């Protein structure tokens, strides 16, 4: 089987974000980068399927600048066979539809049996790209999966719904699935696998060669939210903080009475 997993590199969400000079996206300087959390589950599921079936070829795809290759190496070390880097220094200016068009244009004549993506990215959080890729390719798409099984050409999954209820679904391959947090336990790459990954094929294709569609949205501005909360912020030595906190709990709540 031919498998594809699409991943994104995102900043660590604990970073201190600054808006860039254009005022339209965050400044990429001084950030720590990692694999989008949702995509870690997608990579793990694809690798598990490859282990289950044996005869599989698993490609990992990532769009972005040279920098994203670091994240792709992690996916290769987790067990992907080859990497396709769609080189694009402008990817942060593309909306989810433009990104989906790049992936679909790459995948359309490759005959992938199953495509895995994360449910959404941690930075944009649009939850659009995976489904759009499936629609552009005319594939059935199961989203928000927290359980996945593959048997005789059919994907069986459970979609996570609000309140912890699940919806049981299935579809025939070729298909695309989007992976939700908790789907599996993503592995940590071992040192030997990290070494092996260095020798795996990592092909770069300029984004322009894949004729991306134009974005359909325009960002007018980006800014931190106005602070509405206005809660008290306390800093200091832990022992002093603890005293202050207990005092506040005594005054403001009834729980220590």
């Amino acid at each position, binding site marked *: 089987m031919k498998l594809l997993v699409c991943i994104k590199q995102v900043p660590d969400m604990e970073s201190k974000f600054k808006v860039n000079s254009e005022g339209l996206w965050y400044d990429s300087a001084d950030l720590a980068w990692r694999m989008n959390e949702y995509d870690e589950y997608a990579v793990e599921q694809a690798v598990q399927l490859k282990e289950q079936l044996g005869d599989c070829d698993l490609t990992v795809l990532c769009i972005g600048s040279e920098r994203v290759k670091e994240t792709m190496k992690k996916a290769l070390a987790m067990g992907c066979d080859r990497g396709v880097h769609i080189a694009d220094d402008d990817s942060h200016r593309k909306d989810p539809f433009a990104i989906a068009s790049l992936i679909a244009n790459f995948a359309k004549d490759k005959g992938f049996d199953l495509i895995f993506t994360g449910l959404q990215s941690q930075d944009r959080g649009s939850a659009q790209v995976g489904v759009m890729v499936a629609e552009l390719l005319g594939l059935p798409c199961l989203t928000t999966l927290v359980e996945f099984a593959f048997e005789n050409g059919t994907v069986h999954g459970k979609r996570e719904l609000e309140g912890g209820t699940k919806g049981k679904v299935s579809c025939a391959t070729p298909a695309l699935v989007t992976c939700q947090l908790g789907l599996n336990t993503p592995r940590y790459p071992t040192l030997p696998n990290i070494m092996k990954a260095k020798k795996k094929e990592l092909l770069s294709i300029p984004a322009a060669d894949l004729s991306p569609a134009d974005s359909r949205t325009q960002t007018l501005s980006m800014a931190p939210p106005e602070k509405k909360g206005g809660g008290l912020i*306390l800093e200091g030595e832990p022992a002093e903080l603890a005293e202050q906190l207990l005092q506040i709990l005594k005054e403001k709540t009834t729980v220590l009475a």
Partner: protein
Amino acid sequence: MKVLLIAESRDGKLLGSAAELSHFAQTLNADSAMLLVGSESALPAYGGTLYLADAALAGEFNPAVHKQLILEVVAKEQPQLIVLPHSSYGWDLAPRLAVALNAAQISEVVEVKDGALVVPTCNAKLRRTIKPTTEISVVTLQAGAFTPSAEPSGTPNVVKLDAAPNGDIQFHGYEAAEATAVDLSKAEIIVSAGRGIGKPENLAMIEALAKALGGEFGASRPVVDAEWTEHSRQVGTTGQTVSPKLYVACGISGAIQHLAGMKKSEFVLAINTDKDAPIGEVADVLAVADLKQLVPILTEKLSR
């Protein structure tokens, strides 16, 4: 402006998001129509035209059929905007509509500002203001962002749609959430552990603080996904909704899905090393500290 609102029904029940959709249409001062794949016995309180397809025929979860029904109504109503809840139903369906209609899609709208739409980015640490560049666009609304102040009223003018079940996905029914071992919804004091606890061994100090305060301990999703504790302890949209007198969030960043489960708490104390963590928005007090230092001291002082 004309908008088409897509309401959601689950297990034969209409979901509350319908009221948020019509409130959003009012915010825009737009004419609206609504579409529901549901049941005649569970209609929304809505004063306009409601296109209704029977879920028993169309399938309650059947994206291909729902998409087809919506496209039919779009052809008839010619809306500029199609609006869905940003829920497991909405984020599944919206991109399918956007591709079919060559429409822009904007996800998880929290506010309308000068005609443009505001969405969160980077776990709500930033916000973007966006405009579609297409004539028709599809948007999803963050749960709770457009809650009307008053209960909606009205009786819809129902127009029935025919639907035949087909499509490329089979739906095999629902599986209920695991029976809850702990009922956090009645707890008066909850101390919750987030990913910031770092490792499972540190859950013990969260439990100890909960015990010293006479409460229960809860958790954010990564702690449950990592199987450091059971799902019945999870607070948030896909866990439990709680409203204690005191909620202590230890090492929890404050993602919207977590906040949705605890924002009705009377008093929120957050302990976090990141002064800018979004939990600060709902916290009465944010103690900027390493929980591994602060939590044991708090417990000790309480136990004295």
